[in-house]
């Protein structure tokens, strides 16, 4: 073993604590306040709707299709000034698409949204949780959704493997008033479709699949 001296000196610093495997131990949560070194926490511009009902009422108020890369390039200047000295791997997004590719993708997302009446969100993101483009009919925390669904898809794929099943085609969240469906576009991109129940599951899955296939051709 290496650096034994270091290890021993550190060992001398052991604290003698009386700790037991408390079966009564309460669940412990990571600290509330994030400390921001690794990556700037993105504050999602629209706050997450606290109340689903309220969100329902707000449906169809906002219909925006956004290209994340454009928004981010617009705010580049201010960001650079506040950056820590390149601590964050995220500073450098290596997956770059042309404006044309992104415009075509945007059109596909809009097509999906109009094909599924119930759909109120469609997001393209990288499988490691970065936003690429999205189309929304309601305010949604797109950064958060992109990141969380990348975890979910990876877990789904991992569970499929552990269950001795092949390709994970969709991860489906069935909720009382809607569905969230995630699927791969290719090795590095994924699509998340968010819909109320006014579009049925079959329709949502097939429109989602078709959209992902078209996007795979556009975003090569």
């Amino acid at each position, binding site marked *: 073993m290496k650096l034994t001296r*270091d290890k021993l000196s550190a060992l001398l*610093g052991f604290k003698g604590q009386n700790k037991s495997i408390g079966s009564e131990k309460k669940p412990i949560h990571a600290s509330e306040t994030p400390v921001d070194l690794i990556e700037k926490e993105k504050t999602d511009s629209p706050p997450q709707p606290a109340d689903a009902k309220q969100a329902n009422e707000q449906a169809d108020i906002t219909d925006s299709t956004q290209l994340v890369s454009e928004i981010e390039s617009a705010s580049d200047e201010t960001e650079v000034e506040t950056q*820590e000295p390149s601590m964050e791997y995220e500073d450098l997004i290596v997956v770059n698409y042309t404006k044309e590719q992104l415009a075509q993708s945007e059109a596909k997302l809009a097509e999906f949204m109009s094909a599924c009446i119930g759909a109120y969100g469609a997001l393209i993101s990288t499988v490691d949780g970065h936003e690429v483009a999205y189309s929304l009919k309601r305010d949604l925390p797109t950064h958060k959704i992109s*990141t969380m669904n990348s975890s979910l898809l990876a877990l789904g794929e991992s569970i499929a493997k552990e269950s001795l099943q092949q390709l994970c085609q969709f991860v489906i969240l069935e909720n009382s008033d809607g569905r969230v469906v995630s699927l791969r576009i290719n090795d590095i991109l994924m699509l998340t479709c968010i819909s109320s129940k006014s579009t049925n599951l079959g329709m949502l899955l097939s429109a989602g699949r078709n959209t992902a296939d078209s996007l795979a051709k556009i975003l090569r």
Partner: protein
Amino acid sequence: MKQIKFIFTGPPGAGKTTAIATISEFPPVSTDVFSTDGLAKVKEKTTVAMDFGQITLDNGQKIGLYGTPGQQRFKFMWEILVQGGLGLIVLVDNRRPEPLKDLEAYLDNFADFIDETDAVIGVTCSDIKDTPSIDDYQELLQKRGQVFPTFAIDARNKDDVLFLLNALLTCLELS
């Protein structure tokens, strides 16, 4: 016997997934996908949900080994993964520009968990960059009023990772 749960955390590329794979008695469950940001220059894949492995001690005690994603954007996974955990292993990548700041960031983010449990620190990749030294880490901890065993380890080396695990078990008086 109840399974003990230990959590590995630390910056992307520090070796959490590697360390768990190095000592797990079964091929660990992994959720690594292609990196699409600057991390891709360091390594091809990154953990986006969790790693899960297991090791059984001589006394039959099973330890579940859970690895977190490194990036702050996956903080929601950190909060899920620490639940029911009994100890934290912070791995710090000495190659990164400011490893001491990295360490502070994880100690702060996991402060509540560490308060309830305990932590050990493994500094990886000191074969590539040998500063800061272990003394520098100890000094930082002292300034923060914290005492955690801190070692230079190679996450690819089974003895090194087991040593770290033993240190944590000793701290928790579980060994």
